[in-house]
């Protein structure tokens, strides 16, 4: 399989590493080679967490600027921060619910206008889908499932056609105990459906 590069960015505590692991396990179960690297220096302390997931051919564990096929952002400002990983053909999928850095809470920095910022980013990349994954996660039972909602959206995007939804669901069941797995299966489906709705909604707008 030709290399597919997925950059996942989040704030410490959002479950970025687990999402990458689930994606990796799903790919492995489909016989696809997986190389990932994670950076979470001081993640539990509210910092930025990055995962790079490379599927298919190749030997490297790293995604250079402009190389990402998909940028999956669990927090909108983190999506913006990682924008340099995008090229004009990158698919961006981002959560819209902010987590304010304490630099903003202290008034030392400004949290940008997210709809405006995402609009600006969307015009430069191969497509941008924004969804309030935090609310979707809350609706299925817990904000903690935000990572799996985002994974559902990624699976829904069609970029990973070689990995069926069944493989993701199996990976979720393999990594979590029953009640938690159930909640996350719902989160996965919710993200999957939300992506479809967004895309349909956007194309409907475009047609008008």
């Amino acid at each position: 399989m030709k290399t597919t590069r997925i950059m996942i960015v989040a704030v410490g505590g959002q479950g970025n590493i687990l999402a990458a692991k689930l994606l990796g396990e799903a790919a492995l179960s489909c016989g696809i080679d997986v190389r990932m690297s994670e950076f979470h220096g001081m993640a539990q302390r509210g910092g930025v967490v990055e995962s790079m997931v490379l599927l298919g051919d190749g030997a490297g564990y790293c995604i250079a600027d402009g190389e990402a096929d998909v940028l999956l952002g669990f927090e909108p400002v983190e999506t913006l921060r990682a924008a340099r990983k995008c090229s004009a053909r990158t698919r961006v999928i981002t959560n819209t619910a902010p987590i304010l850095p304490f630099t903003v809470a202290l008034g030392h920095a400004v949290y940008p206008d997210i709809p405006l910022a995402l609009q600006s980013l969307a015009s430069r990349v191969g497509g941008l889908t924004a969804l309030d994954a935090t609310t979707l996660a809350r609706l299925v039972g817990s904000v903690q499932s935000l990572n799996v909602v985002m994974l559902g959206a990624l699976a829904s995007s069609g970029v990973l056609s070689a990995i069926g939804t069944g493989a993701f669901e199996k990976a979720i069941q393999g990594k979590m105990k029953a009640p938690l797995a159930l909640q996350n299966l719902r989160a996965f489906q919710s993200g999957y459906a939300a992506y479809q709705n967004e895309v349909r909604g956007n194309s409907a707008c475009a047609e008008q």
Partner: protein
Amino acid sequence: MTHPLLTDTPDRKMLLLGNEAIARGALEAGVAFASAYPGTPSSEIALQFFSIAREQNDLYFEYSANEKVALEMAAGAAMCGLRAIVSMKHVGLNVASDALLTLAYTGVKGALVVAVADDPFMYSSQNEQDSRYYAKLSSLPMLEPSSVQEAKDMTRYAFNLSEGLGMPVILRTTTRINHASGVVSLGLLMLRSNSGVFHKDPFSYVCIPSVSRNLHPKLLKKSAKAANIANESRWNVIQGRGSFGIVCNGVSYGYVADAITESGYTDRFKVLRLGFSHPIPENLVVKFLKNCEKVLIVEEGEPYLEEAIRVVAHKNGFGAPVFGKDERLLSRLYEFDPAIVKNAISSVFDLPFTSSVPIATEDLPAAPPRPPNLCAGCPHRAAYLAVREVFGDSAIYPTDIGCYTLGLHAPLNMGDFLIAMGAGLGSAGGFARATGKKVVAFIGDSTFFHSGLSPLASSVYNRHDFLLVILDNGTTGMTGHQPHPGVDVSHLGLDKTQIDIESVVRGLGVKSVLTVNPLHFVKAAEAVKRISTEPGVSVLIMKAPCPLYDKTLPGHKPGRPYTIRRDRCKNHRTCVNKTGCPAFHIEGDRVEIDPHRCTGCALCAQICPEKAIMPMSGKGSEP
């Protein structure tokens, strides 16, 4: 439940973290003794042994007080014929190096693998030193994996190599191997032998000058033998037959291989991948250099391979130009990535590459910085505020390594000097003598046992004058809550002796010692004031548990979150501006507390001038 790394199904494919792969490799080699001091990016190696040793009692594992002790502990076991591994981060090897450099002289009877994890770009380290020079300095063999699969396979091999040569072997990785994950095909698990025999041989093992004079030539002989093995090693391979030569190691190999594939000029290149990179396999390098028109060395960090290759080329009369570290080509700084390596290859060999072009980002709205911050409820925040309350900016604050280093950031602004474990305390007397100013040094509990005892003894003996604040949160916080000698681990069923920090401090001759809970803010600030009037070295132990660790302990009761009473709050914002606690945020014009993040530490409630911050009454409702 059996630990996943004990899966006894050869050829089974698993997705493993680099550090898990290293641990698996050691298990496949029959490791019986493991020791470590935690440090990013090496910590998960030790974590595997920590959990496996609780399931399988023929594997011994310990968190030692520091890397030097960990190495010496493993060396003792290896001297008796056991297979041992010690793991640490790169700067940990500085601490352990005193033992390592002479252990190279005595050698070992069993096997000893020294796993050292470098951190290019300093994701979570104080420097980005290149530990490969320790192999050169010690004359010990070194292995450097390029993939997660190799991390496992090389670790297993390292044990055999060590036992075969009778010398410790360095397994050197970088963050992008340790914290990378990949598909690993499992091998056979070997039975471990955990009972050793020590054969006395003082004139080979007791390194007095006359003995060492005999041992050094023996070490050089062993090293020559290692060079012969390296020349034939399957870890050192030449790929391709082109005249464009590239020499590389570690993760750089992946970037080089991918770049060559993408270039479409595969037949023009010849790659020498050095996985067994010390001693340098000279014969193999000579073979490689023949017919090379140009040579590019791709290695992160210092020009370790470049220097070696240049020497071999010079000795053997090769005139092909060698390219390597050069500001415009490949830097000595930070990490490489695929684009950096592609550009270097493109520039040296004059080949076009169609790299991915990043979108313009300069004119996108700026992302506000998100530096790591002390957690909500962290007692270090309270400790810093109490000291700041008394001394403000007038004192000098040498600090140390751990979560509490984050006190550096605004609004706490606590931390004036930081270089190494224990060095805050070690340097305090120097600052005090040189300036005559008040000096308050900080050290964490784990760091205190790691490197605080000697500088404290030295400071007492030399009658220095400063205040040492020991931030005792009952765990090694930053690296993931590993135990240390000051921690009670009876709830884990571990049989250890807990050492009381205050007794240690008194035992080292400190006369004025106080222990306070920093979350009792007024009392803590009073304690700072009171103890600071004492001459000489005084010690204030600020003791309160790490809230993240505390959550994992049996019998933990979550604290009741606090909330701001609108009728009392006058929006001074003392709470946010002084503490920088991440549970606060501004909504509209008002400060709010996120009840999901607030641990109920009550620090803000104690400093609010209007006493407007109160515990939430009942479940989730406003008072």
